[in-house]
């Protein structure tokens, strides 16, 4: 029995604890304790993982447990981690921990709010440790469905519309995924024998090309919907703008990464032949997504919409890098997921706090906030600089790796796509600096803003945790990069076996 099981057990216990809590404070502190344990557990996991690797343990999957669940269908409860999933688990635990503090002032139905939030987080943790496609999909849906209540009850603006749109689009994506998974299952033993949902076992067999061609688009688009693949990204701006702070953080920070991770882990890894053939279609779409998201952010006036479009751009970059299918770009894709996850969570947390004080999210109505809330303003600048890829922060490492990797392709098509995607960095700089200038600097536009207070203790905890994450990766990227590379080895082997050798 592996201790990874705790990643599912702790959220369940926390929700039970919340159910029996009496006051608002008890509810919040139960959530903090539960997710604090989760954070410590994730830290322990990273440490143990690195120690095991350092000790020379080269197994593809560490800390695995395999239990039979449905015998006749050969569905297992199979959990385990490799370098990539350890990194994603670390990201999730940081964001959810910060998210609890960012939603400290939820007063309407707090018990239900934190239960849904932790259920969502539990689904995400389950997703990242699952190695059986059935449980992977099960946790995927568990992670998606609480969003409906979270946005619908505690959201703002056209929340009913956004919640419904988001849920239906994401569940539509999961419908595609389900078909794709069934296809994988029934083709998992082409030579006869026991069919399986086991991801590692499927990765050892060669799936017939006809099946690959049929199911790859379903899987890639299905996960791509959650990863903001253009043109299926439209749920994202509305959803993020309407969601309450912590939900935006978790959603943009973690949930969208489920899409990227699924594309990499399921679609490209298991169906590499079709991935090679069809990558060009999706590369065009993701390139459009990267550039379009960045330009979209320029035109927005609402802080949350700016960040939502920026997320579309950054998440498209993840898919873009996955489709480049070489080691460096893939590594960059994972780094970008981690980096963007923390960064965007920081942004959404700050936007929530700014909105809580100014009661507006329109940048034109604000100005000079640096004078009244220096702590939050500095944090915003740090987040902005990370987002536009300044060296020393995580964003630089990630984007640099992606573009170095994708420029290794020496054909015209890949190079053109890369150059177009690189241009988004400039556009990103434009909208980030513009917002910083209008929002934080200059004169205070509204006299009421003079009475605004700076971040409270719970705000500060949330922000400090996230900033530590960003700078830790930015200053010392190598340990993370090594860890990820380790996990990428089997993936790259399979990809290289399946297709033409790319340079």
């Amino acid at each position, binding site marked *: 029995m592996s201790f990874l099981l705790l990643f599912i057990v702790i959220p369940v216990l926390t929700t039970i604890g919340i159910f029996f809590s009496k006051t608002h404070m008890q509810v919040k502190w139960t959530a903090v304790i539960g997710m604090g344990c989760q954070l410590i557990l994730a830290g322990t996991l990273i440490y143990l993982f690195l120690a095991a690797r350092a000790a020379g343990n080269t197994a593809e999957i560490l800390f695995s447990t395999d239990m039979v669940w449905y015998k006749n269908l050969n569905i297992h409860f199979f959990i385990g981690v490799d370098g990539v999933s350890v990194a994603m688990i670390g990201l999730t635990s940081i964001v959810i921990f910060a998210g609890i503090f960012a939603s400290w002032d939820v007063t309407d139905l707090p018990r239900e709010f934190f239960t849904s939030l932790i259920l969502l987080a539990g689904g995400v943790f389950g997703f990242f440790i699952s190695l059986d496609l059935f449980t992977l999909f099960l946790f995927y*849906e*568990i992670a998606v469905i609480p969003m*409906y*209540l979270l946005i619908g009850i505690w959201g703002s603006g056209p929340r009913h519309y956004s919640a419904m749109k988001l849920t239906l689009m994401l569940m539509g994506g999961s419908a595609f995924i*389900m*078909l794709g998974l*069934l296809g994988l299952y029934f083709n998992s033993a082409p030579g006869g024998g026991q069919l399986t949902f086991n991801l590692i076992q499927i990765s050892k067999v060669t799936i017939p090309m006809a099946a690959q061609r049929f199911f790859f688009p379903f899987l890639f688009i299905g996960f791509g919907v959650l990863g903001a693949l253009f043109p299926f990204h439209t749920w994202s701006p509305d959803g993020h703008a309407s969601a309450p702070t912590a939900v935006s953080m978790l959603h943009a920070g973690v949930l969208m990464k489920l899409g990227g991770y699924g594309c990499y882990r399921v679609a490209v890894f298991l169906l590499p032949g079709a991935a090679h053939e069809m990558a060009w279609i999706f590369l065009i779409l993701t390139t459009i997504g990267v550039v379009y998201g960045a330009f979209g952010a320029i035109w927005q006036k609402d802080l949350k919409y700016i960040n939502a479009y920026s997320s579309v751009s950054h998440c498209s970059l993840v898919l873009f890098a996955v489709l480049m299918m070489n080691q460096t770009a893939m590594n960059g894709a994972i780094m970008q997921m981690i980096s963007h996850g923390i960064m965007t969570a920081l942004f959404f947390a700050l936007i929530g706090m700014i909105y809580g004080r100014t009661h507006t999210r329109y940048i034109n109505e604000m100005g000079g906030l640096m004078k009244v809330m220096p702590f939050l303003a500095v944090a915003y600048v740090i987040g902005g600089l990370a987002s536009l890829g300044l060296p020393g922060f995580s964003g630089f490492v990630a984007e640099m790796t992606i573009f170095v990797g994708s420029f290794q392709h020496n054909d015209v098509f890949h190079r053109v796509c890369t150059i177009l995607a690189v241009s988004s960095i400039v556009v990103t700089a434009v909208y980030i600096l513009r917002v910083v200038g209008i929002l934080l600097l200059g004169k205070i536009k509204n006299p009421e803003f003079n009475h605004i207070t700076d971040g409270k203790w719970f705000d500060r905890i949330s922000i400090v945790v996230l900033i530590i994450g960003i700078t830790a990766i930015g200053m010392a990227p190598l340990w993370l990069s090594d860890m990820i590379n380790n996990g990428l080895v089997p993936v790259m082997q399979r990809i290289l076996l399946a297709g033409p050798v790319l340079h």
Partner: protein
Amino acid sequence: MLIMRHELLLIAITVILLLVEIFLPAGKKDRIITPAILLMLAVLILGFIPGPTGSLFGGMYQTTNLIIMLKNILNIGAFIVMVQSVDWLRKPENTEKISEYYILLLSTLIGMQYMISSGDFLMFYLGLELATIPLAALAAFERFKEKSAEAGVKFIFSSALSSGILLYGLSMIYGTTGTLYFAEVGPAFTGTPLQVLGFIFFFAGMAFKISLVPFHLWTADVYEGAPINITSYLSVVSKGAAAFILTILLYTVFSKIALMWSNVLYIIIVLTITMGNLFAIRQQNLKRFLAFSSIAQAGFILLGVIGQSQYGMATVIYFVLVYIFSNLGAFGVVSIVSNRTGFESINDYDGFYRTNPRLAMVMMLSLFSLAGIPPVAGFFGKFFLFAAAANHGLYILVLIAIINTIISLYYYLLVIKAMFLNRSDRPIQRIKSDFYTNLGLILCLVGIFAIGIVSVVFETINGLSFGLY
């Protein structure tokens, strides 16, 4: 004797209830509730004790371990319905008729059990009629309500018509094969034009019972007019029994024309799921809403039938079991709200969670289970059904069905939206539920969670389905 123990036990308690009823003083008729439920519980438990299997009356009646399990599943459904209807039966206008209610309900259950145990078409038809006619009386149970009477009449007319069609088909089958025994019809059924015509009539008759499109037109009106607990019984137990026997017959008697009926089923599944869903979107009355949703669910059940394997049969049974708990959970909430307040429209449920959090949670989980959202059992049921169809290579059909689950999610979310998201100036007042209501809802909740996560249930069903196809 023991071979037929399910039916005999039910007959015994029906007679006991009839006798007890005579000795109960007027005005105290509601004392029969507790003994009736306890007796039913005893039958339910006794049914699970392993017993002999075999055939009686020269093969007219047969039972296997699989059939015993099907009967147990129907017993579970009927038991929950009996528990859930207590609150409604205690209303002043019903108290004089409580024992009639139980006796009629049990008679239909006996009919269904004979139907799925039948070894020839004559027995099958007898069981079918015994299952149908008391249901018409039950649908018209609230005589003083015009809609209920209307529902009864509509039900009896449509089922008479469908029985007629079915009988006509059976007569053709009898005419061409010269026998009514399943075991003898099967080999003789070679698919001559007249036999195929007979099969079509037979299938149309059954499609009426399961309310498949295009034979579904009676469903919404009857479901809306009948008392809610009868509606839930109709949509769950009655439909489940018909689906069971249809699957068994398709797999055994009509296996030689499997290619033909699977093509027919293909079209009917697509129509049923899509039409059921599209009509459900527009419903405001929760009973009509659940009626159309149950039409769509019937289409999903057939998805397992078209899988044409032992595994397909197992998924059908499993899905019906899941569906019993999920649908009864939803109907249980609708029924108590309707009994206490008279509200049945989705709009009336605005802000329901804030006044009745527990009922709203049960409703939400039941609807999630119907929509197939994990971790509740509906997810497993749907996934296995899709796997059964995909196993047969019908990926396009599976895709259509999966897209339909998203449509269904939309309208289930509409109800959840009303309960959780919307605010209302005059929400439904806090409802104090009594013991039996709580029991009924808790049973559903336990079922919704346990059946999915505990894999033994499905494995047992799969093990027993062996050898049928």
